[in-house]
């Protein structure tokens, strides 16, 4: 501690400590603690707060699982399905992003040289200067029934009837994959870039076909980057709101949309908090699973 003060001087040290404290407490601990607290309470009218009904309860979580007591269905199928679909679709989006980004990242990091690689990175970043909402609407235009893709396929004579990409959720998956693609490319790029190219050549020289080089040499080396990219894309997909709102089919909900409804139109913060906590836990489970599967530590992911 004294070292820290001596190294950075009193003013800067105090500032750093306060900033970190503020960040951790105000941005991370307090809001989540509030949410957690909310999630175990009843949705009360203002005049009931502090009254006899103001007690802790698990009812908000029970609602997600079983629905309202006395419902004919045993479970709350509607919300559980949305939850599961959100998780599975996010995993799918993550895998899709990985499959798309790994070759690109490998190419930029190991094959392309110098200025060429830099211009490719720039090309990747450029679309993200346009804001998220605008990009989502652009995808609507691309994928709509009378959109660019359908129009093209119809003029080419490949399709007779337009395909409803929005209803089929193709637009949603494409939009989500596209929205978080950089968060996959950069961790992968960073990880692959640090691999000594001689190792790739050594594997090749020992007779290895290209897929085994990737499986045994490149991917093991890039594991922290893969884990970091996958967890980022998964969490942001599962927590996305704008893209599902704009690109989701009329009948398909994203779990965040339900949370949003609880907070907003439903006005039931307690219920919304419980749902949000469940989503947060699902994300944590995903991160821990990925860390376990890839045998990487949190420190390596953050690198």
């Amino acid at each position: 501690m004294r070292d820290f003060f001596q190294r950075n001087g009193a003013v800067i040290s105090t500032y750093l400590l306060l900033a970190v404290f503020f960040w951790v407490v105000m941005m991370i601990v307090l809001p989540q603690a509030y949410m957690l607290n909310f999630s175990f309470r009843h949705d009360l009218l203002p005049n009931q707060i502090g009254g006899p009904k103001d007690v802790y309860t698990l009812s908000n979580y029970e609602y997600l699982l079983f629905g309202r007591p006395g419902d004919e269905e045993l479970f709350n199928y509607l919300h559980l399905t949305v939850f599961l679909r959100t998780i599975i679709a996010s995993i799918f989006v993550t895998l899709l992003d990985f499959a798309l980004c790994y070759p690109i990242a490998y190419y930029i990091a190991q094959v392309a040289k110098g200025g060429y690689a830099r211009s490719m990175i720039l090309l990747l970043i450029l679309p993200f200067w346009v804001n998220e909402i605008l990009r989502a609407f652009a995808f609507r235009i691309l994928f709509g029934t009378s959109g660019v893709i359908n129009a093209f396929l119809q003029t080419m004579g490949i399709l007779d009837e337009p395909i409803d990409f929005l209803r089929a959720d193709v637009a949603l998956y494409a939009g989500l994959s596209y929205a978080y693609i950089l968060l996959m490319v950069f961790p992968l790029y960073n990880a692959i870039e640090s691999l000594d190219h001689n190792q790739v050549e050594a594997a090749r020289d020992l007779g290895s076909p290209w897929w085994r080089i990737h499986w045994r040499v490149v991917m093991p080396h890039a594991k922290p980057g893969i884990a970091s990219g996958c967890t980022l894309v998964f969490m942001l997909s599962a927590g996305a709101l704008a893209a599902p709102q704009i690109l989701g089919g009329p009948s398909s909900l994203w779990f965040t949309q339900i949370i949003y409804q609880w907070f907003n139109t439903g006005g039931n913060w307690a219920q919304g908090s419980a749902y949000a906590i469940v989503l947060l836990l699902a994300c944590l489970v995903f991160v821990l699973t990925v860390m376990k599967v890839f045998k990487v530590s949190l420190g390596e992911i953050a690198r």
Partner: protein
Amino acid sequence: MSADVELDHMTIRFGEFTAVKDANLKIEDGEFFSFLGPSGCGKTTILRAISGFLEPTEGEVRIGGKNMKGIGPNKRPTALIFQNLALFPLMSVADNIAFGLEVRGVGKAERRKRADELLDLIALGDQGNKKVSELSGGQKQRVAIARALAVEPAVLLLDEPLSALDLKLRQHMRTELRAIQQRVGITFIYITHDQGEALTMSDRIAVMSQGIIQQVGTGTEVYENSQTAFVASFVGENNPFHGKVVGTEGSDALVDTAFGRLRGRNVRGMQPGQSAMLFVRPESMSFANGDAENVIESQVLHSEFEGSFFSVFLRGEGAKDIVMSMTNSGDLPQYQEGESARVAFKAERALVLPVGDVADE
């Protein structure tokens, strides 16, 4: 499979730049062959062309008589040991060695058995389960060799594999490499900028400069019968004397230099009137007594005691000193710094060569 390696008029260009020019030689099956030359002369480029990582711009590479054009590095009967070894740090030592077998679909038990045999060969018998990072420099070196040998290549290519080691270990590994080569009996193609390594290990050496193979021969041939000024000055130490050929006598040529008329072997058949360089090695010179031929009158500048021998520096032509060395046999000649000295050499120990670039120290 017979594994002679032929370079047939091979030229390699990177854009406008010619990295290897018209390399033309044959390396015999089972030979320990070295490419020796200063850094940047194109050695690695030749090795990469033999291993298949790049294709010659002109000419061809043949292994066992077969043109290798279009055959990738994973399909050639060669194994390359990289300058930085390029071991796989995330695999155990044994898995590194067995990687080539894994690629070939050899089962796990068999792989482990072969890896253990190779570990014995490189005297690391019980270290198979270690991580690569737990090994010392010399051990990593040997693991890289074992990993390459595991795929039973017909030709082993080594790119300055000892350059990262310290002097003692380097000298030890020289002997070891040579011994391994003799045990496995396959062709070794070795790259180095260190003439000591090339001379001690190789059956034959190709001396290179600026992409051109200057001379191919045994160690004694390139040392004793250097064919170009570059080879004479790069392999071992040599004293050059610039001059003009004024006559030939039998197999000798007479050259007029700044130190008078000197005689040397006319190995390149030079004619009177041509500019020439006469080379005399430090150990071929001695202080002259009486009126010997090939006498150089100069001035002692300083001397260096090196233990087993003794170097004396004399004022040469221009900025370069003349170096002579004498073995330390107990009674060293007496002289003073700054005093004039007469040194001489035998004509059969001097070479008369066409003027050419000399290696800079």
